[in-house]
């Protein structure tokens, strides 16, 4: 009896202790919310309790926001590596017999693998950070988020390691071995679970931004799982590949992007909550519809029935609407021309770069080349590559860099010299990207006209493209200089903010 009592007593004390800790945690978060509400009722900028806009000094920092730093730092470092790998590949194409330890075909695989995975890792960090910020509550399990980070990082690095040793599975953009994708899927599973439990736990506080970021994360998982293994049916193999190449990019990441921007504009006090959240669910639903069925433009020539020509074309057109709504949301956030610190200005320079390519390279150019009779000739040429650079890095990459910089610089303000370097880096990235893409698009037009329309030998036409491929490599060199400079600035901000945040 005494024993039972003591065990029960121990369990009770343990439970009570946990409950107390939970209460303390919730209270801590609630105090933050309370002070926000208090400040709002006094007519001050409620968000200044969390981060002072002028000094960048942090207020309450959640564990998830500290963990988000790991994700965004890893994304920034992988982005730094990306520029070097891509530049080496571009040089390999223009200098005959260039000695290289990694053959071109595997170098390209590493480049494409990195192009998808560093934004994914950065997005995970951004979603954790901004869901917490939006709910003003801790995530369900910070420990799970930590494990998830190491899992996704190890799985991603295993892809690059295996490809370096020429071990892959020959699927474009999904180049790594199945086990690596199983690891990434597991990480996405933990991510989705953690986010959903967070929303359930704080269901009274769910915001549209937090909800659509969570929906985007779940969709990332749903469309990766069928790609863990490749299938024998070549039509299904091609189609499921585009569930990642297109549906990730134009739907799932589009949802996390909208959620991030809404949360960022709202929580930094740049835009009013009602202006931001009014159309957010509608925009998100349109994104899901258009992003999903817009994948149809990748199905035109892979053996799908002819009705996909119409579906792909119509929904690709529909994709312009949520993008317009997204741009409108950002415009509303900035039309008051708020006084901003250097940290905010640099973040906005990256976000606005993303918006530029979102509208031009991803949406407008993307729509033009999805018109079936244009696509028939332009498809499978360097035009697609130019569009992919503008859409993948221009639209998504810039945004993830903006979010990563914002998260990693929390609690600091760059001095004038650092700020100038940051802006120079953003300019170099823009000039480099535009040079690369323009060169690729011209090269693609020549391929389309000479080889596809006139019927000249494809390889003969390719031999005449060296000028444009050299211009692409030059653009790549400018881009890589911006890439390294920005990565360096982000690393500096991370080091500087370490003490402030912890």
């Amino acid at each position, binding site marked *: 009896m005494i024993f039972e009592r003591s065990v029960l007593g121990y369990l009770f004390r343990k439970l009570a202790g946990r409950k107390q800790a939970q209460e303390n945690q919730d209270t801590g978060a609630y105090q933050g919310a309370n002070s926000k509400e208090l400040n709002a009722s006094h007519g001050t900028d409620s968000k200044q309790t969390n981060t002072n806009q002028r000094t960048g000094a942090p207020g309450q920092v959640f564990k998830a926001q500290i963990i988000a730093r790991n994700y965004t730092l890893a994304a920034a470092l992988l982005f730094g590596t990306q520029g070097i790998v891509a530049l080496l590949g571009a040089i390999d194409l223009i200098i*005959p*017999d260039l000695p290289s330890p990694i053959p*071109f*075909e*595997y170098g*390209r695989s590493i480049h494409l693998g990195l192009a998808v995975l560093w934004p994914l890792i950065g997005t995970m960090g951004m979603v954790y950070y901004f869901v917490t910020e939006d709910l003003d509550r801790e995530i369900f399990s910070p420990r799970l988020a930590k494990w998830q980070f190491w899992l996704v990082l190890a799985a991603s690095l295993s892809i690059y390691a295996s490809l370096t040793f020429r071990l*892959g*599975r*020959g*699927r*474009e953009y999904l180049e790594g071995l199945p086990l690596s994708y199983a690891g990434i899927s597991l990480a996405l599973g933990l991510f989705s679970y953690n986010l959903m439990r967070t929303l359930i736990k704080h269901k009274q506080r*769910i915001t*549209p931004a937090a*909800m*659509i970021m969570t*929906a985007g994360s779940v*969709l990332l998982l749903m469309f990766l799982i069928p790609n863990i293994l*490749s299938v*024998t*049916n*070549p*039509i*299904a193999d*091609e*189609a499921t*590949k585009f569930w990642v190449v297109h549906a990730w990019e134009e739907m799932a990441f589009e949802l996390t992007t909208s959620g991030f921007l809404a949360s960022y504009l709202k929580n930094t006090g740049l835009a009013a909550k009602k202006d931001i959240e009014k159309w957010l*669910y*509608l925009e*998100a*639903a349109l994104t*899901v*519809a258009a992003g*999903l069925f817009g*994948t149809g433009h*990748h*199905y*035109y*020539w*892979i*053996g*799908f*029935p*002819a009705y996909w020509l119409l*579906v792909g074309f119509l929904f690709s057109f529909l994709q312009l609407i949520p993008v317009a709504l997204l741009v409108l949301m950002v415009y509303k956030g900035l039309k008051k021309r708020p006084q901003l610190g250097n940290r905010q200005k640099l973040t906005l320079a990256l976000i606005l770069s993303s918006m530029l390519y979102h509208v031009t390279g991803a949406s407008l150019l993307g729509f033009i080349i999805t018109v079936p009779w244009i696509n*028939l000739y332009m*498809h*499978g*040429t*360097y035009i*697609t590559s130019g569009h992919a650079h503008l859409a993948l890095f221009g639209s998504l990459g810039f945004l993830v860099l903006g979010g990563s910089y914002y998260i990693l610089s929390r609690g600091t303000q760059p001095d004038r010299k650092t700020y100038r370097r940051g802006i120079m880096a953003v300019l170099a990235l823009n000039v480099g990207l535009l040079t690369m893409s323009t060169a690729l698009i011209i090269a*693609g037009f020549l391929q389309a006209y000479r*080889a*596809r*329309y*006139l*019927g000249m030998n*494809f*390889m003969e036409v*390719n*031999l005449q493209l060296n000028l444009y491929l050299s211009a692409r490599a030059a653009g790549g060199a400018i881009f890589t200089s911006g890439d390294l400079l920005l990565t360096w600035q982000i690393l500096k901000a991370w080091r500087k903010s370490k003490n402030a945040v912890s």
Partner: protein
Amino acid sequence: MRLRTFALVSLLLVAAFTGANITSWKLPYPMPEDAQEGKAVWQKHNCVSCHTLFGNGGYVGDDMTNILKRRTAEDVQHYLTNPPVMRPNREHLHPALEPGEAEFLTSYLRFVGDIPTLGWPPEPRGAKQ
């Protein structure tokens, strides 16, 4: 629009999209075993990094969707087992395949060539004129 409506609409859209995909990726006839082996060869040698199939892949090499309508199987196999120098290189050869692998790969390319692709790759118009 509210949270529940958004969640419901999204779920329905995903279900409709997945269903439409599954009913659309039907093969013209069952894929022969050697063609399946050939697909594994295509992937093992990472051919997609340089060549396109259905127009998807790398842009430095030619599209392989209907290569066997332009070249004989023997020509393709000879090319793969005795690879030439890839211009503009002077030394760098096209990756070499074992004879068995080359046979499997041509079977796969023959099968891919039989898939109805709605006119891909396009017939050159200028050449006709």
